[in-house]
């Protein structure tokens, strides 16, 4: 009884960690570039696939994958910003959404063509196998690792953005990029690096998720729609808000899966509707 409840809460916390990491990346990119990165889900999927392919073809293990996959995807992301997204500066932000949607279709189509519908499983790294019995439940080590890492990454990102000089540039760029450029900061470069960092974060999340979920070409697209709802619920523009909302909604989803499993896939969208009804700007958002 309680075993099942805590089990679902843990699953919820894991999902929530991924929601938090992904919505953090979305929030950083949107804040500075005014682009809703639809491709975030595809980039997450590619991160997971990069880890899987690294292990399969090159024998690169989990720990190196955790470093190399985000780095490679970050470079790819920077190239996408430099070559494609930059051309849309100054246009309606909807075009950014549509462009990244097109990129999503290309990436998913290519991976689907190459790897089909079936999922590939990625082994849990040796150091994180097994688990501990907490008395009221069994805690697999890898799951604890996922939650801990996501908390550390989210807190570190929050600290960098809110409390350091680099973060101050980022926030200034969000507020007024032209003025910041007049102060001698290379804003176009900052855009490229920020997008690259957001993509790297998505790929990092993908590598983290590879041992938990099946690695499939479509693993990102269903997730990204939920993450969009999470962003709407949390409200745009608050880094801390997106982290808290992500984790919280994961837990709510887990709780629903325990209490009323049929509703677990829709509960986040229902909450989105309720939040729009009561607090249209989102829980942590400013109306803009």
């Amino acid at each position, binding site marked *: 009884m309680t075993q099942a409840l805590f089990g679902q809460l843990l699953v919820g916390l894991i999902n929530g960690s991924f929601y938090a990491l992904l919505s953090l990346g979305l929030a950083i990119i949107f804040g500075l570039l005014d682009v809703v990165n639809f491709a975030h889900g595809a980039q997450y999927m590619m991160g997971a696939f990069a880890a899987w392919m690294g292990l399969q073809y090159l024998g690169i293990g989990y720990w190196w994958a955790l470093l190399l996959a985000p780095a490679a995807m970050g470079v790819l992301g920077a190239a996408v910003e430099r070559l494609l997204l930059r051309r849309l500066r100054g246009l309606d932000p909807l*075009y950014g*959404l549509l462009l990244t*949607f*097109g990129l999503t279709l*290309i990436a998913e189509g290519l991976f689907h063509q190459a790897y089909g519908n079936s999922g590939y499983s990625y082994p849990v790294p040796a150091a994180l196998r097994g688990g501990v019995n907490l008395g009221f439940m069994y805690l697999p080590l890898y799951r604890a690792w996922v939650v801990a890492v996501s908390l550390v990454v989210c807190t570190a990102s929050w600290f960098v953005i809110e409390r350091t000089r680099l973060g101050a540039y980022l926030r200034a760029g969000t507020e007024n990029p032209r003025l910041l450029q007049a102060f001698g900061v290379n804003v176009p470069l900052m855009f490229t690096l920020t997008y690259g960092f957001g993509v790297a974060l998505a790929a990092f999340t993908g590598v983290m998720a590879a041992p938990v979920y099946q690695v499939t070409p479509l693993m990102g697209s269903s997730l990204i729609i939920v993450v969009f*709802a999470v962003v709407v619920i949390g409200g*745009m523009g608050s880094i801390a808000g997106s982290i808290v909302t992500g984790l919280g909604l994961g837990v709510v989803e887990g709780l629903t899966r325990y209490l009323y499993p049929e509703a677990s896939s829709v509960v986040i969208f229902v909450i989105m509707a309720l939040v*729009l009804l009561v607090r249209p700007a989102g829980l942590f958002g400013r109306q803009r």
Partner: protein
Amino acid sequence: MTAPATRDTPSAAGPAAVDGPRLAGRLRSPRTWGWGALVLLGLAAPYLVYPVFAMNVLCLALFASAFNLLLGYAGLLSFGHAAFLGASAYATGAAVKLAGLPPELAVLCGTSVAALLGWVFGSLAIRRSGISFAMITLGFAQLVYFLVVQMAWTGGEDGLQGISRGRALGIVDLAEPHRMYYFVFAAFLAGFWLIHRTIDSPFGHVLRAIRENEPRALSLGYAVESYKLVAFVLSAALSGLAGALKAVVLQFASLSDVHWHRSGEVILMTLLGGMGTPLGPSVGALLVVSLENYLVDAGSWVTVITGGVFVLCVLVFRRGIVGEVRALVRRSFLGVAR
């Protein structure tokens, strides 16, 4: 819901009743001849191409035109229009299969379901604008998708199959493809005319004003939210009409009709053909349906090519085919500098 269009009429356009000399003038204008030719082409279509293909194109053209009413004229990007197409298709199927309604009433039933859904989703979604609006509509569409997957009567992964076409008005047997085609064509013309009429009406001009500058429209005293909502419901209802027709034509409703790929596809049709142009979405629908038909054996390459066309449209081709042609015509014949 009161129609706010009648309350404040901008001076720009109020198409008056067509009287004698104006009718003669209209008959002489190339525009009238162009539309006439298109209607003739539509009438001849089932004898030129495979009727089911033509009907599929018409349904999706109506869907894209309804979508364009929202994106092209009100400036609202809905990323969840598949919800209306799909929900209506399933409702129509249920009306035929479970309630035994004749096709015209079943189509009406599906359209009303879509309109109602549009009203609910629309009134929530318009509380946020721009990019959030797109994300919210996408979320609601996913909600509908999961509901359809889970409910027992929809047939889950298999879809709702075996919707019989029946007899329209109790006399016309729609099992015959050409009769079915003209039934669809009549509904398409009605829907298309309604969209066209809306765009040219004072209401449509206010929508454009909202698209161009929402704060100004608000400060001029227009009830911006009601305008947006009416446009959203109208667009949802007409998308529903398209979905209902599609269900009757193909005799099934499937999960792909509620999937977010379908929402992306309608954006592509509108973008490719030319958003904000009356004919663009239909041209886009014809191209996209032809492409998908042609590449039916190509597997996931269809998705890749669709994505590529998307990227090209956004980067170099934002006016779409009809928009580019129109700009070209204006530049070369009318001497409008731009």
